[in-house]
């Protein structure tokens, strides 16, 4: 589990009793967000009718995310586009940078994903209450349910609603951690089986790397699309 260790880089920064030191996790957060900013800034600088490669990349990502939002949350979700775009890109880049050997995976820490998920949860809930007032509580009362079952259903709905941040954060964190642990385990097998028997786990390791890159993209996508779905619940009350 060494690869998930957080350690201090540079001096210890303490505000009161709270340790806010710059760590390797912070370093990779900075790297990821800088990479996003640099790539998309380069992609938006020149406006040619026929885009160059980096511009194409930026514009394809833009249309990809905007299509994802309009498909799942409708046109009302447009003001939240830049947040969901930033979220998707941040998670995607953190996941992808984590695939580099010796790099630290920011999203493999539950506290990071939980903070993101909790922010989304509270944000979506606040948006829901602002848009619908107390009518937002109708979310917990599905229509067309027999009155007898209603208390049970409402309890289940409330629990499922409250578990959203947990499921959202744990999904991302567990996927990233499990993938990296697996790769480490197979890497360890390569070493312990030596030059004779190590080829099989090495092949697995290569295959897993491909799989993990896919998972890194997929989990970022899932994170973003679930955010869109929650936002959809808050914006367009369906129940």
């Amino acid at each position, binding site marked *: 589990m060494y690869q998930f260790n*957080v350690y201090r880089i540079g001096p210890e920064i303490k505000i009161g009793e709270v340790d806010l030191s*710059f760590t390797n996790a912070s370093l990779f*957060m*900075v790297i990821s967000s800088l990479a996003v*900013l640099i790539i998309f800034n380069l992609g938006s600088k020149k*406006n040619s009718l026929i885009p160059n490669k980096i*511009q194409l990349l930026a514009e394809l990502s833009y249309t990809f995310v905007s299509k994802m939002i309009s498909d799942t949350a409708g046109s009302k979700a447009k003001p939240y586009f830049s947040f969901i775009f930033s979220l998707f890109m941040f998670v995607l880049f953190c996941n992808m940078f984590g695939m580099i050997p010796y790099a630290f995976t920011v999203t493999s*820490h539950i506290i*990071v994903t939980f903070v993101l998920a909790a922010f989304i949860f509270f944000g979506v809930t606040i948006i829901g209450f602002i848009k619908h007032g107390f009518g937002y509580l109708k979310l917990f009362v599905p229509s067309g349910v027999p009155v007898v079952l209603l208390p049970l259903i409402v309890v289940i709905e409330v629990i499922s609603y409250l578990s959203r941040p947990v499921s959202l954060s744990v999904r991302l964190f567990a996927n990233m951690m499990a993938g990296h642990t697996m790769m480490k385990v197979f890497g360890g097998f390569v*070493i312990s089986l030596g030059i004779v028997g190590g080829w099989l786990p090495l092949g697995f390791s290569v295959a897993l790397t491909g799989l993990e890159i896919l998972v890194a993209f997929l989990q970022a996508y899932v994170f973003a699309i679930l955010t869109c779905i929650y936002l959809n619940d808050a914006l367009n009350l369906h129940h």
Partner: protein
Amino acid sequence: MFLRFSQSLLIYFLLFSYVESAESGGMPQLNPEFWFSQIFWLIITFGIMFILLSKLVLPKISENLEVRKAQISENIEAAEKQREESDKKLKEYDQLILNSKNEAKDYFNKAREKILKDVDKKRENLEKEINEEINKAEKEILDLKNKSPEKIRKIASETSSDLIKQLIGVEVNNSSISAIVEDVTRKTN
């Protein structure tokens, strides 16, 4: 070389696992030592990225996309317009060709009619002339026909009177001879 490399890797591996086991064990994720630092830096990095993206970068990309869309639709519109124009021109051209074809046909027809008329006229004139000639000839023939019996009679009476004179040396009365000749001709006829 490779063996040495793998050996050193093995040493690292053992070292790491030793360090690991020296730790409290379990997942570092659940160790709250750096939680606040992570939250703090997450908010800072994500916040700065979000602000810069939403204020500077994304509007530019969206503007670029809009501009491109507008330009493409403009170009399509212009192309459409030009196509319409060319269609119009093509129609005009077709009309022109049709008109000129009709005109050419008219000219041809007119010329043919004129020629036909001329030919007819000439033929009529010729026929007229021919007819006249024929009439004249017929008249002459008729004249000749009408005049011939008298002449024949005259010649006959003259020759007969001459014959008689030479034969018998007597002058015969002309009228009696002509009466006889007439009688003979009637009989022969």
